């Protein structure tokens, strides 16, 4: 197998590989800015300098030439090379900053140049704390500054587009943002203007940077030059907790991180998953963070004289139980939801089965032509395939209306059927409607009983995306019902991880009064004398995996190891 020597250590490699990526993949480090693993390597920042040589081969025999000590003779490149655009070659010898003084010096020199015109904005810069320039300066940069002349001034607070703001002085001209619009989102909306130290990215005159993926440039900008119009100045990164999750605003199921402080989700960023979304996500998925904080259903409500008024948990619980008991089971319609998780839909199904009611139905939320062939799919729901694989009955709007007509009691799991015009409020006029909802909507308004349930940010649960990949969430914030100390799915707080007291878990603020749907179902089952034990997402999925062949072999452990599991074959053709 071909080999390469890095700082005296031998590595084997296969195929075509960029030296910088190879070094990073093998747990070593080289400072860099412009390189991004998913884009072309322009080698413009000149930060990843290393020393490179190739062994000398005898032209005739093809053998390596050896020196008097029996070591291979190395021919060094006369100049230092950038690791990012160097392809590894067999026998290559590489010296990094760890072993070569000139390399160390060159990296420091480049950082000195970058910092020369960089404003001292760190104390007020959103990027501080997660800034590659800051981090690499600490590690590899010069101490102090020899730059005693005037810095270049450029426009600050430029609204590049509706969601992205540019501070041109902070830009280090790595062209990552420009390459993103050229190579990834293909909107070609950005270019660098001017020359030399006057460089900065702009849109064409009169145009906006309104790319549906524009906020990815904020993520990949290695400095605080591009910031999110929505998030900027809201929180320092070290005040927030980062919890892995799944984008539930679209069927694609982009892998994301939820950033929490004081039980509020403050921003959403993409999380790398090569099989789903690489490093990217659409802007619209980031806006979904508001759904976790705003307009939530807080504590149960019951309708009295056409008006919903708050009720106690006990009262709501007892009313619903009595209603179920007193209704002919053939006249109960359970409606599942592609917007709810596998575990929630399964819980609904279990309840329906044990009661002897009909299998729950669901209606897809697909907007034909909405998808862009990249990370936005026609399917607006995160779990359409989950409902299908569980065996819920898929109904179009017309047949759902028919089902509704012949039912007396309707139990609806988190789906805004009225808002998305599948049903009309009038369809439900003479029915008793129990709605389990996360947010207040037109649909929640018609509920005779309204029960608040947890969102994807508050429970561990799984979702099957349009490509039939099952992926799961973690609770990112506490509710009034959960106790972090008792919930093994809760991610670590900063206090756990870093021993800092900037911890989002320590506050009682902003906890929503809601309950995981399966817990409600369990209690209801007990009250109704049914044998239901649904304790948490992990156990429910184990049960599903044992009972339903489509899910066999699936578990939280396995999903965590593989970043999600494909449940068979190709993407189901989307039909509405």
């Amino acid at each position: 197998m071909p080999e390469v020597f890095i700082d005296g250590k031998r590595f084997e490699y296969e195929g075509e590989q960029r030296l910088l990526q190879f070094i990073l993949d093998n747990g070593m480090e080289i400072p860099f800015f412009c390189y991004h693993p998913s884009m072309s390597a322009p080698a413009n920042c000149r930060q990843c300098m290393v020393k490179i040589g190739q062994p000398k081969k005898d032209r005739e025999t093809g053998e390596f030439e050896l020196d008097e000590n029996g070591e291979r003779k190395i021919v060094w490149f006369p100049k230092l090379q950038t690791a990012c655009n160097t392809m590894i070659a067999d026998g290559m010898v590489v010296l990094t900053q760890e072993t070569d003084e000139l390399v160390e010096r060159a990296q420091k020199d480049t950082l000195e140049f970058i910092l020369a015109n960089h404003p001292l904005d760190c104390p007020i810069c959103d990027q501080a704390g997660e800034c590659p320039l800051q981090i690499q300066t600490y590690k590899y940069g010069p101490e102090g500054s020899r730059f005693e002349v005037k810095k270049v001034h450029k426009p600050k607070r430029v609204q590049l587009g509706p969601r992205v703001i540019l501070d041109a002085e902070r830009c280090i001209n790595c062209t990552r943002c420009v390459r993103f619009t050229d190579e990834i989102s293909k909107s070609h909306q950005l270019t660098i203007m001017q020359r030399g130290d006057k460089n900065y990215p702009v849109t064409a005159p009169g145009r906006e940077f309104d790319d549906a993926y524009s906020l990815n440039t904020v993520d990949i900008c290695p400095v605080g030059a591009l910031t999110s119009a929505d998030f900027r100045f809201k929180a320092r990164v070290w005040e927030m907790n980062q919890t892995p999750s799944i984008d539930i605003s679209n069927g694609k199921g982009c892998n994301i991180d939820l950033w929490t402080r004081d039980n509020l989700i403050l921003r959403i960023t993409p999380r790398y998953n090569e099989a789903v979304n690489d490093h990217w996500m659409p802007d619209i998925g980031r806006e979904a963070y508001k759904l976790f904080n705003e307009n939530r259903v807080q504590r149960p409500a019951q309708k009295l004289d056409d008006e919903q008024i708050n009720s106690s948990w006990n009262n709501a619980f007892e009313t619903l139980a009595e209603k179920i008991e007193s209704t002919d089971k053939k006249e109960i319609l359970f409606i599942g939801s592609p917007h709810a998780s596998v575990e929630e839909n399964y819980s609904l199904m279990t309840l329906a089965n044990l009661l002897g009611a009909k299998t729950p139905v669901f209606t897809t939320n697909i907007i034909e032509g909405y998808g862009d062939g990249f990370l936005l799919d026609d399917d607006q729901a995160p779990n359409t395939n989950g409902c299908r694989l569980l065996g819920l009955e898929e109904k179009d709007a017309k047949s759902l209306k028919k089902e509704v007509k012949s039912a007396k009691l309707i139990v609806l799991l988190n789906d805004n059927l009225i808002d998305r015009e599948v049903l009309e409020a009038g369809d439900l006029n003479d029915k008793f409607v129990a709605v389990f909802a996360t947010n207040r909507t037109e649909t929640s308004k018609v509920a005779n009983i309204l029960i608040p349930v947890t969102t994807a940010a508050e429970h561990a649960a799984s979702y099957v995306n349009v490509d039939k990949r099952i992926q799961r969430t973690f609770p990112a914030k506490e509710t009034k019902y959960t106790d972090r100390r008792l919930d093994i799915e809760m991610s670590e707080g900063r206090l756990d991880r870093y021993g800092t007291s900037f911890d989002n878990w320590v506050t009682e603020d902003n906890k929503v009064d809601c309950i995981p749907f399966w817990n409600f179902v369990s209690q209801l089952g007990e009250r109704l004398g049914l044998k239901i034990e649904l304790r948490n997402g992990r156990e429910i999925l184990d049960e599903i995996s044992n009972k339903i062949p489509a899910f066999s072999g699936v578990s939280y452990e396995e999903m965590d190891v593989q970043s999600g599991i494909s449940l068979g074959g190709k993407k189901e053709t989307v039909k509405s």
Partner: protein
Amino acid sequence: MSSADWKNYKPVLIPEIKDLHKIDVYEKNGGYEALKQVLTDKKKFDGPKSVIDEVKAANIRGRGGAGFNAGLKWSFMPPADGGPRYLACNGDESEPGTFKDRKIFEYNPHIFIEGALIAAYAMQITSIYVYIRGEYIDYVKMMEKAVQDAYDKGYIGKDILGSGFNVEFHVTYGAGAYICGEETSMLESIEGKRGYPRVKPPFPAQKGLWGRPTTINNIETLSCVPLVIKNGASWFSEIGAKNHPGPILYGISGHVNRPGVYELPSGVPVHDLINEVAGGMRNGKKLKAIIPGGSSTPVLRADQLEGVSMDSDSLREAGSMLGTAGLVVMDEDTDMVDVLWRIAHFYHHESCGQCTPCRDGTGWLEKILLKIKNGDGEVKDLDLLLDITTQMEGRTICALADAAAWPVRHTITRFRDEFEARCKKSVHAMA
């Protein structure tokens, strides 16, 4: 013809023939004969490779500044595969002190066109682009006309002179950026993109214009080609300096009586160029320094010029380079701090801004030099300047950073006293 015999030299690139820029006049004076020979005289030239061999043997060293053997460069083109291949002719001519290609555009455009056509044939090229600096808009128009005339006469186009050889010829121009003279930046610009130099490898011969094999040559380089074809490689290689033969368009500027472009053999002694060709120093002043080949080549003090001639070996020994043979002459009244600041200003203004060391280094150099020029500098700034040049050299995508660093390094080292004298006196007591 030896360099010493330059007085008897008769210009061949821009000979004194009235209206030579007109295609009829050019033809009457033997124009397009070389192209005919190459395409149709099978006894003399047996296919493209024989043309490359002849040009290689002539040792035409690139007149764009780097001095690379043109024929050798042509031989790097991969074998033709039926797809498009390009010749990009560099007429961007923007290095301060360099103003020679314009003479060819103005007085003898067809010698360049003919040379480009021969090069195209030799490398089996399908399209030629000539890229002219935007400020030369008049020459752009003249070139467009000359190319059209050559099309009309059947020297460009399909089945040229019945040989079966086809080639297109496009005239393009820049928009005022020096960096677009750097060859790969020029390719980007021709493609209609922002003029950022490309990272090499891949080299243009592998992936040039639109990702296809491309060769880049300077206008003057290509203009030498018809001469080599007509008169033979040995005729050419015997003109002037042995290692850098052929006619050279010397662009002489600065404090001389007759600045201008002069065609002479390579290797003319510097003193002859100043004192005889350019009519001597203006106002009888004494010579202080020269920049021999465009602003990036290291400055030489008058006392370093004894016996030095304008060829690559001699100038290297003296501590500089031939570059574009754009000779800048400076008299005793010249303020070297001013000169260096002005050069640094140019490179700062022209850095494309891709590479960190160049983008931020060129500006830093200029700003310190301005400070020194204004009398606010300190001696430690001189050492800082030298440090900065070390941090820039050899660490960037293209050679602009080197071109910016060299003059600073060499001017400060060679005129250190003058720079120190401009610095503030130390405020620290000497022990």
